């Protein structure tokens, strides 16, 4: 009996150590990281977020940042264990936070589905839910495989994903949006481009078979009407001009990615 005590003690210590390593108080400066935490059910750890993070109002999570700047003072007073930032945050902000002794973890912007999954798992490990995160990822990978199988072979429609209106912006390779197109068996009309700001004429010349408009609000409707007015356009003839919800489509989390892909494939074929 007495032999159990050291063992139990060891377990408790290990548990304490891992718990100590888990981040309990997280401030997220990255919307999709916030979303990921929700997806894992770990939103209670969130003590701070940005004004444009997809949080539930009922959770009353304090806002520490807006689009242009981070309120460093407020961040400090909330005593976070870790602040998660991304390449979209200013390097000076990250430096400042580090200088003040706050741990900052950088989440790069995922450039593909593979990266989306990898980063999701990273966040999971950060909150001690690595296993759960991995589960979610595996589930989505299975879903993805099924979806890919449903894609009819032989067709290779030209796809244009519009992510901006004034100026006209399209999704280019080296982003996870490219994966949308690839997994659904399509071809990105912008595959040769590095920069996404294009002229309307370019789009017409490429003559996409399918157009997805991923902008917000009425602008999307107007863009749809504009594209529909070009009668010689393939997508117009096929009646395949669709508006997708920007929040769902532009959030690089595994679940939302597959959701969006599912909708896309349904619309495309």
């Amino acid at each position: 009996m007495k032999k159990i005590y050291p063992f139990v003690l060891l377990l408790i210590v290990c548990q304490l150590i891992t718990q100590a390593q888990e981040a309990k108080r997280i401030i997220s400066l990255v919307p999709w990281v916030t979303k990921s935490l929700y997806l894992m059910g770990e939103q209670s750890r969130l003590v701070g977020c940005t004004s444009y993070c997809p949080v539930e109002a009922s959770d009353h999570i304090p806002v520490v940042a807006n689009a242009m700047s981070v309120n460093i003072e407020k961040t400090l007073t909330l005593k976070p264990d870790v602040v998660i930032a991304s390449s979209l945050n200013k390097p000076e902000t990250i430096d400042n936070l580090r200088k003040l002794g706050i741990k900052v973890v950088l989440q790069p912007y995922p450039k593909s589905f593979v990266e989306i999954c990898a980063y999701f798992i990273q966040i999971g490990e950060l909150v001690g839910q690595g296993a759960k995160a991995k589960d979610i990822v595996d589930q989505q990978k299975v879903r993805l495989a099924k979806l890919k199988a449903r894609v009819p072979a032989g067709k290779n429609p030209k796809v244009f994903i519009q992510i901006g209106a004034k100026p006209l912006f399209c999704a280019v390779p080296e982003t996870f949006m490219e994966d949308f197109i690839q997994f659904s068996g399509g071809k990105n009309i912008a595959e040769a481009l590095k920069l996404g700001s294009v002229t309307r004429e370019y789009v017409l010349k490429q003559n996409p078979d399918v157009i997805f408009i991923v902008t917000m609000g009425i602008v999307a409707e107007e863009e749809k009407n504009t594209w529909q007015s070009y009668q010689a356009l393939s997508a117009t003839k096929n009646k395949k001009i669709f508006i997708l919800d920007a929040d769902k489509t532009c959030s690089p989390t595994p679940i939302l990615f597959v959701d969006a892909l599912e909708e896309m494939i349904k619309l495309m074929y």
Partner: protein
Amino acid sequence: MQKKYLHWSLYLAGLIVLLVASVVLSLSVGEMNLGFMDIFSILRKGNGSMEYTILSQIRFPRVLLGIAVGGSLSLSGILLQGVYRNPLVEPYTLGISGGASLGVAVAIVFGLQHLIGSFVLPISGFAGAFLIIFLVYTISSRSGRINIQSMLLSGVMISFIASSLMMLMMATTSSENLHGIIFWIMGSLDEPDMSLIYITLILAFTSLVASYFFVQPLNALRLGEEKARHLGINTDTTIKLLFLLASLLAGVSVAVAGVIGFVGLIIPHLMRLLVGSDYRILLVSSFLSGSIFLVLSDVIARTIISPNELPIGVITGIVGGIVFLLMMGRSSLRTLKNN
């Protein structure tokens, strides 16, 4: 006497030819290069081909807008320079672009276009411009008689305030909105709404005709405000009306196409160097050259980093500035030779 009128007719003819040539160039050049002869056959074949769509729905509207905005801005510039007798005055010195930019910034930041629609942008741009025009006009006519210098000063000051307010908004909004505001500010002839283009075009040509009713006062003003009065010209009424006309032209241009700078400054100067200072020829030549300049700048903006598009304000600034410096250089060489 006859010689003068002959020269004018030649200039006019030359400018019209240049305008037609620029239009044809603009219609031919782009992602798909269309030969001159092809244009006719495409038009005849009518609806259905991609070339027809590009030609009629993308290039043609851009050309029309280029003519309208280029003409409007130049006309506005020449009228203002005539009124203020100051060569540094252009439509935007008076704060019109500052006001319009502020109006658009407000609309974008409050997400109005998501609620109401894209046409809210030109309207807020024009509302902003109009507010500035109204402020400048009321401030300067407070003391009864119009004081030209105080008009200029109040315009510049209000412009600064508007710009600062706009930068304040830009500093506190999301990067997506920021991108939208900056893109709008840098100017573009990409406007899918044909009704806006028609409005601008009709306004431009109507204003050109209307401005010719002021040719005499404008020429008299070349001698100065007091001397123009001595010649029987009602300078107060003239200045007020011309100011409003010029502001309207600039306000509508900026609302529809964003801030396209330098056109209202450079073209009038260039024309003065080329055709002289008589407003009878200056008004229409400024209008036409402005149109030509903008149509050609748009061609460059569309093709230079194809398939991406440069903001047209960049082209007008750089190209316009260089061309002007060259002309200034040659004219000062000529005066050196004469002396």
